[in-house]
């Protein structure tokens, strides 16, 4: 059967707002859709800005691939700013792919879709609905708004001017509208404009559905987002800072807005027909509850702070499960899922995947490398043509973005505005890189931005955060100190301004913003200054405003210190504040597991997966829980899912093998676990580690003899303790502060003592040969060495304090190993190496990829050097 698919976009729709309305029977059409299909949350991307998100939805690709990077862009003159168009979209959208496949495809109002593309169907751009002049004046339509152009006049007549609306339209939103002083307040005017805009799109969409043949129809409504930015603050319950009068006037707007969308949905469902496949989605959510921010930052895109990270996803149609929940959907999955629905191949260069769980019978999706290389007329604008076709800036659309707070008013100096736009879009690009795991690209962009505009604190904040995540501690510290200095400079300026005022009072020194202090605590944590970090957070959580929002940060800090019971309490507090905080659920699961409460741990980990199914480490930890509970089949399932999502997690692969052995099952084949991705040898860093005097130099020497390339500066000469040399590199000692040199160690073998292992940045892959030696021998050997070096040194005295310190270090290495799937660790017994070098070296050789010369490695071991014995 030929499938017809209707995709409806409701910008900012959120189940947190919808579910209470459905429970009261106020959204019957959506309820019908939900009951006849699947529903789930849809995870958004960062930054959560709608033009970028809706383009990712339509292409299955992240912003750095599709090229749409913000609300505004430069006009072709390179000097003026205009609302974003599709001119810079570099890849095919779903409507281009279907056009290429001969399907009848219509697109209405998608953001951004101007100028309309010449697809096989109708496209009405997102500049269609906006009335820019009073009703008494002509209402021209911008060139390029409608494809095919002959339908232009027809669609022009379907537009509704806000001034056409009457009290009958406004009263359901604001029953006491007569009490609003319209000379002073713009609320009703804004409301009428939003309502007229979305009703215009509805009029156009219903005409197309009734009068035109269609295979795919995509229609986008921005009204919920616009209602929410204007009126969500008045949604019940009233918060103390909201004036009672405004609250009473506007408290019903959001409910009315959702109910109106339900009415429109009912009509679209009716026209689409029972056999149609219908997908209803939003690009992000919008907090309707206590998570509504009290104030918004005065920066571009500041209002996006009101967005919540989960949008909605609904799908019904032939072959789709009924009344079912799906987990882990993300907006990058929409286009791959649409392709699967049409039986078309999914492309490997897309960042999402088809949501196979929606199907009653899972199809086997076809796969191609890319749709970009597939020949055929796809209805995209020729390169550059789109940019030139739209040369007139739509000031009205620009003004709307200003009013919504998404962009600053360009003002009378267009060139300044254009510099800002370019910079802002680079910032969003950097955030998109970081969100997509491209840390180095994101950091590179942020470095430049912070250098160019150090007064923009958010550039610095984002840079410090990214540097911390990639373990570039020295630079993170420098950037943070710089950021702090810039903020102090700004405080001084503000203070001077205040004093210069006629009645200005000295308000004293400004304090560092709490957000910056939290970031500072993260820097301290990364530097291993746990107590100082904890002190900062503990001080901040005493302030009522931060008591709840900082619980997750407090929990992370406590967890890193191994204080698991307190960490668990803090995670629980964080979840009381935001039950949808997936990372808090994950953290609580890990904390509960570490405290031995496996039941609670599995509960939290399942809660995390119900929110986001695509997080491999949540599955991994769930597997760990079940393994400890001896529920091996469930553990196997969790580790298997973990590997399906992220095949590179070696530890999960080893657990699978262990369980298969325990259960007497055949090996991985047929379980659907992808093969380990082949990582080129030249990308892997081989690390020889262990406590000092545990045989690390001996192992280095053996590996080098076997053909490994050492990463060493040869600065430390051989001596009596290590007559064959130390094979060290001085940079390793400073690794806690700066680990950038490790990029040069890829494909080579480096010695890193055990206490420094936790400072290996997660962005590299490691094979670690960890030397284990009897602690008495280690300490004895160290004493011998120190005794030889200094006559004042202690000799052969067993030191309890050092023994305890080393034991703690080894425990820290164990913790680090458990938390770092990018490292494969092979533990080697020093005693076995001495006793049977050939056997032990054969094992090491296999663990390191099988390319070294075992005989040469074994020959390099000199048992004569085994001088300190327990």
């Amino acid at each position, binding site marked *: 059967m030929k499938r017809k698919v209707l995709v409806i976009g409701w910008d900012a729709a959120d189940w947190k707002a919808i579910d209470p309305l459905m429970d009261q029977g106020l959204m019957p059409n959506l309820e019908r859709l939900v009951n006849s299909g699947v529903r789930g949350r849809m995870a958004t991307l960062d930054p959560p800005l709608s033009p970028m998100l809706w383009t990712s939805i339509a292409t299955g690709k992240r912003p750095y691939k599709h090229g749409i990077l913000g609300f505004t862009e430069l006009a072709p003159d390179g000097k003026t700013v205009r609302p974003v168009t599709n001119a810079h979209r570099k890849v095919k959208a779903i409507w281009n792919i279907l056009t290429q496949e001969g399907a009848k495809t219509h697109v209405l109002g998608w953001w951004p879709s101007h100028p309309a593309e010449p697809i096989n169907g109708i496209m009405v751009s997102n500049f269609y609905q906006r009335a820019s002049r009073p009703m008494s004046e002509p209402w021209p339509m911008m060139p390029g708004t409608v494809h095919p152009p002959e339908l232009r006049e027809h669609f022009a007549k*379907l537009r509704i001017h806000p001034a056409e609306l009457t009290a009958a*339209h406004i009263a359901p939103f604001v029953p006491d509208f007569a009490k609003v002083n319209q000379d002073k307040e713009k609320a009703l005017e804004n409301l009428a404009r939003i309502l007229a805009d979305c*009703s215009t799109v509805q009029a156009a969409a219903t005409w197309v559905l009734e009068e035109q043949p269609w295979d795919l129809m995509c229609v986008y409504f921005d009204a919920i987002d616009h209602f929410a930015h204007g009126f969500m603050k008045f949604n019940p319950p009233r918060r103390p800072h909201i004036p009672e009068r405004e609250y009473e006037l506007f408290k019903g707007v959001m409910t009315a807005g959702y109910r109106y969308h339900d009415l429109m949905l009912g009509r679209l469902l009716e026209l689409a027909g029972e056999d149609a496949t219908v997908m209803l989605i939003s690009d992000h959510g919008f907090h309707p509850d206590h998570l509504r921010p009290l104030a918004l930052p005065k920066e571009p895109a500041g209002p996006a702070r009101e967005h919540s990270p989960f949008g909605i996803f609904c799908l019904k149609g032939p072959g789709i499960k009924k009344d079912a929940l799906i987990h882990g959907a993300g907006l990058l999955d929409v286009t791959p899922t649409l392709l699967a629905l049409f039986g078309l191949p999914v492309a490997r260069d897309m960042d999402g995947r088809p949501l196979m769980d929606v199907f009653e019978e899972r199809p086997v999706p076809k796969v191609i490398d890319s749709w970009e290389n597939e020949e055929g007329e796809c209805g995209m604008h020729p390169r550059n043509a789109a940019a030139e076709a739209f040369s007139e800036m739509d000031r009205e659309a620009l003004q709307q973005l200003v009013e919504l707070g998404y962009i600053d008013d360009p003002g009378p100096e267009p060139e300044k505005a254009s510099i800002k736009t370019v910079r802002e879009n680079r910032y969003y690009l950097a955030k998109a890189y970081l969100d997509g795991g491209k840390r180095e690209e994101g950091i590179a962009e942020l470095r430049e931005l912070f250098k160019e505009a150090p007064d923009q604190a958010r550039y610095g904040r984002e840079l410090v955060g990214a540097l911390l995540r990639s373990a570039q501690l020295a630079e993170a510290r420098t950037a943070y100190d710089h950021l702090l200095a810039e903020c102090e400079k700004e405080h001084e300026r503000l203070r001077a301004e205040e004093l210069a005022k006629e009645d200005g009072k000295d308000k004293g020194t400004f304090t560092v913003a709490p957000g910056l202090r939290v970031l500072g605590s993260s820097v301290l944590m990364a530097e291993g200054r746990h107590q100082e970090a904890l002190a900062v957070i503990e001080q901040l959580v005493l302030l009522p405003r931060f008591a709840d929002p900082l619980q997750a940060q407090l929990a992370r800090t406590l967890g890193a210190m191994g204080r698991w019971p307190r960490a668990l309490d803090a995670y629980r507090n964080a979840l009381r504040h935001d039950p949808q905080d997936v990372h808090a659920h994950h953290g609580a699961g890990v904390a509960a597991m570490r405290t031995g409460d496996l039941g609670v741990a599995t509960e939290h980990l399942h809660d995390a997966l119900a929110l986001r199914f695509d997080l491999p480490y949540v599955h991994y930890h769930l597997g760990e829980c079940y393994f400890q509970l001896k529920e091996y089949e469930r553990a196997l399932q969790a580790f298997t899912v973990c590997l399906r999502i992220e095949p590179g997690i070696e530890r999960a692969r080893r657990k699978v093998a262990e369980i298969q052995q325990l259960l007497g099952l055949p090996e991985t084949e047929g379980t659907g676990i992808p093969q380990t991705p082949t990582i080129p040898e030249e990308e892997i860093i081989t690390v020889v580690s262990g406590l000092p005097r545990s045989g690390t130099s001996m192992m280095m020497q053996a590996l080098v003899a076997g053909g490994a390339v050492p990463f060493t500066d040869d600065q430390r000469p051989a001596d009596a303790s290590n007559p064959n040399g130390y094979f060290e590199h001085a940079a390793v000692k400073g690794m806690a502060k700066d680990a950038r040199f490790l990029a040069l160690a890829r494909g080579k073998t480096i010695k890193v003592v055990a206490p420094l292992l936790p400072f290996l940045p997660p962005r590299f892959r490691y094979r670690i040969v960890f030397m284990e030696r009897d602690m008495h021998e280690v300490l004895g050997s160290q004493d011998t060495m120190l005794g030889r070096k200094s006559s004042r040194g202690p000799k052969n005295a067993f030191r309890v304090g050092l023994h305890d310190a080393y034991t703690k270090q080894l425990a820290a290495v164990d913790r680090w190993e458990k938390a770092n799937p990018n490292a494969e660790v092979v533990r080697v017994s020093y005693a076995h190496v001495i006793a049977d070098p050939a056997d032990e070296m054969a094992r090491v050789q296999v663990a390191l990829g099988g390319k070294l010369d075992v005989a040469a490695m074994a020959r390099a071991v000199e048992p004569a050097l085994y001088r300190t014995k327990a």
Partner: protein
Amino acid sequence: MALNKSTDGPGQFRAADGSQFEVTADGSLSLLALGYRGLMAWRAKRIEVADLKGKAPKKQ
């Protein structure tokens, strides 16, 4: 609000169950939600009412 696709003339819709659906000059959210048919019916009704009053509203 299941309405069929046809109108019985300006100001009226026939619902799926055969009952008549009145269109008023003031309009309503239900009419707007119906899309272009609701819009056209509402505009036609406004013209009809304005004609009766001897004053036609501005056409879109």
